[in-house]
């Protein structure tokens, strides 16, 4: 088969790019354990309390280890339930020391929501009946807004909270 000189160059370029992209993808998936945020972990959407993580007392921030935290979020129209503090007030502001690893676990009681910590990689669909989870290292100090980025109804814009990463 005869190939034009230029054809050989662009075929090499194209196939090379494909190989590089696939290697990066494979490395992320098999070595770093990257997976879709919702990957078949189910829950009863009408009784999310039946799951240990979404019991009212376990919602919000939990310290697991020195720089390991878990944040459990129960999303519903139109609120992110992040639990209550010691005085019984609703939590809308979470503080985490810089450099900690945070595991976000979220589920929805009703419709699909979009859990997004604006300005970070924490961005996941939250579907009723499923638990979405994502572990992220919070390395940049600052105050981030948690929003819902999946239109969920008339009160969509009321679903927000803040996450502060302090030094």
């Amino acid at each position, binding site marked *: 088969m*005869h190939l*034009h000189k*230029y*054809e050989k*160059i*662009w075929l090499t*370029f*194209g196939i090379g*790019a494909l190989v590089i*992209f696939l290697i*990066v993808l494979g490395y992320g998936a098999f070595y770093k354990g990257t997976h879709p945020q919702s990957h078949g972990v189910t829950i009863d959407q009408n009784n999310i309390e039946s799951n240990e993580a979404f019991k009212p007392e376990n919602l919000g921030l939990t310290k697991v280890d020195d720089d390991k935290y878990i944040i459990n979020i129960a999303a519903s129209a139109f609120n992110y339930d992040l639990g209550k503090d010691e005085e019984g007030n609703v939590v809308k502001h979470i503080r985490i020391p810089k450099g900690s690893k945070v595991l976000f676990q979220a589920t929805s009681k009703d419709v699909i929501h979009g859990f997004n910590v604006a*300005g*970070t*990689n924490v961005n996941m669909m939250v579907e009723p009946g499923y638990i979405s989870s994502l572990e992220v290292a919070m390395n*940049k100090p600052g105050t981030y807004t948690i929003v819902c980025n999946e239109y969920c109804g008339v009160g969509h814009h009321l679903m927000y909270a803040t996450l502060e990463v302090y030094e």
Partner: protein
Amino acid sequence: MSNDEKKKANHNEEKSDLKGTFVSVMILGVFLVISWIGAFTLFLSR
């Protein structure tokens, strides 16, 4: 078509000018690579 003419036609095809195609393919390729690197860097840095 005589044999000579056939030869000439083949010859012309082999020498077809693909410079324009090459440049457009490379422009597209570079654009794809730059956008991919941009998105990936954004993912790694946040």
